[in-house]
């Protein structure tokens, strides 16, 4: 209850974070009730009389019109929230877990562990993200697993660096020394004493990683390496592009999924920008 009130106070004071959190809330609610909210089955091929209802414009029956294969755009958009959240959250959790662990080890243990992890991070950061994902998808099998794996494999250094520098300052504090004196093992100090202190920071990077994962999924789908059996915003855009929606000026088809992606990624940026002020009060007056 206290935490909820504190969160509310924070959101009221930070308009950026408030808007971001509101967007996330809206997307989560939509994803939970997708089957109730969507007017049609997203994969159902709709018909007008005996003909397939292709390229219907915006109308009271189809708020966002239909696709080239007669599917309801609004329903696909609503169902897309599920795959977006699924990809975004799994990738964010994995990337933050790896990044935090690496940052913690490097920062706390120092020495050759630190050197090794920092070097590894530098090398990973010089791998081109999209090309790597393409090659991996082509050599294994296309789908969301590859997207999540790539985000996890290639984006952990960003989190690790920040966590590392945070741990570097934390480990010099008196209470860490106190813990050591009372005979706590390194493992215990790292995971019981220091880890909780850096979790908020890790969560912050997680909110940005959600956006990265969704962008990655969209790009993979667009290039033809998404999972064709899921209804995702990326797959919607790919279908629109491949079926001449641009030439036909079917704005009602290819604008909404893009806007949905933008709002979700933007929400992550906004939350992280807003909470930066909370975590680093020094920046607040800048």
């Amino acid at each position: 209850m206290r935490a909820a009130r504190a969160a509310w106070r924070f959101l009221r004071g930070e308009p950026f974070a408030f808007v971001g959190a509101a967007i996330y809330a809206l997307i989560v609610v939509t994803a939970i009730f997708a089957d109730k909210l969507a007017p049609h089955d997203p994969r159902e091929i709709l018909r007008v009389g005996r003909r397939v209802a292709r390229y219907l414009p915006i109308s009271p029956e189809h708020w966002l019109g239909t696709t080239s294969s007669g599917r309801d755009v609004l329903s696909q958009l609503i169902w897309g929230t599920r795959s977006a959240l699924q990809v975004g959250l799994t990738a964010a959790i994995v990337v933050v877990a790896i990044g935090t662990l690496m940052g913690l080890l490097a920062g706390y243990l120092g020495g050759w562990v630190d050197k090794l992890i920092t070097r590894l991070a530098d090398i990973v950061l010089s791998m081109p993200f999209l090309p790597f994902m393409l090659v991996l998808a082509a050599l294994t099998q296309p789908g969301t697993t590859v997207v999540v794996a790539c985000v996890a494999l290639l984006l952990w250094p960003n989190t690790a660096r920040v966590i590392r520098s945070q741990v570097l300052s934390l480990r010099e504090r008196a209470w860490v020394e106190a813990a050591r004196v009372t005979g706590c093992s390194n493992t215990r100090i790292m995971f019981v004493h220091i880890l909780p202190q850096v979790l908020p920071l890790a969560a912050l990077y997680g909110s940005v990683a959600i956006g990265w994962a969704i962008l990655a999924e969209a790009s993979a789908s667009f290039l033809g390496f998404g999972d064709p059996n899921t209804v995702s915003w990326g797959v919607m855009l790919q279908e629109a592009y491949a079926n001449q929606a641009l030439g036909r000026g079917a704005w009602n088809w290819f604008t909404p999924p893009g806007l949905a992606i933008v709002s979700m990624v933007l929400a992550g940026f906004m939350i992280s920008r807003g909470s930066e002020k909370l975590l680093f009060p020094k920046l607040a007056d800048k």
Partner: protein
Amino acid sequence: MSRSGFLRLVAERLGFLVLTVWITTTVTFLLFRLMPGDPTLAYLSPTFNEETRTALLRSFGLDKPLWEQYLIYMGNLLQGDLGTSFLQRVPVSQLLADALPNTIILTLVALSIAYAFGIVAGAFLAFQRGRGIEGFAIPAALATRSAPEFWLGMLLLAGLAFQLGWFPTGGAVPPGSNLGGVVDRLTSPEFWRHLFLPALTLVLYLQGLPLLLMRATMLEVMNDEFIVMARMKGLSRWSIVMRHAARNALLPVVTAFALGLGASVGGNVVVETVFAWPGVGRVLVQAVQGADYPVAQGAFILISVVLATMNTVADLLYAALDPRVSVGARR
């Protein structure tokens, strides 16, 4: 930093670059050969007859043990031999050499415009700190960074090319005509007309970073002692902002430019695909889609090497420009 100190840094960075490139190429080798399934399937098109098959197997060294294959692969790489395309039956290096200038032109043009705009707009916004325009400009800059590049491209394509007909819908030259040499391309108005939309897409996508970076560092620099000093000397606000603050705030932006150059060469993959721009990214996508593995491998290696090189350049630029950076105390 002392001169010898800087030279040592250069040597250290170059050594690390070599290490990175070696690891990247090794990972690429392992990726392409150790994937589940028969590696010969990945390397040999089923349409080849028995004779070409054996010849190719031998030329790739695929009949040998893995470590020997690795030595051959590295040897070939060092000689610039990336193999032969399955689909087009030409050396991979030639395909890449044809595509690379297009990618570089697109990236350089877009990055330069994006950074010129971002620097000016960022400095302006720092100047406007606390005014109403911030509430609009910052979310707008963040929003363009949140949009998938290919979707921005799709919107521009649908509006400016298909609907209004102002620009061609794809490619680098009108269908049927020859691309010509690099000089021919740069002097041809058609080429620039084709370049416009992909470049604009990239500009929209890329301008947010320099803008936010410039604004943030400007605000930081404006509080520094030497600015207070300049103000005390009675210099005009404009002179302070432009001649003192901006020059110091540019430093991270310059580094970001070098990093951005490397990242864009790889990240252009989707933009080049949307606009059918004949660059390295599109070569990679088509090779991957068509299971043309030597081309995919070559393009991936090229993109990685460019990225790693630009990262090194960014590091060195930063050290060369900022007297405060000392050797060994990086990050």
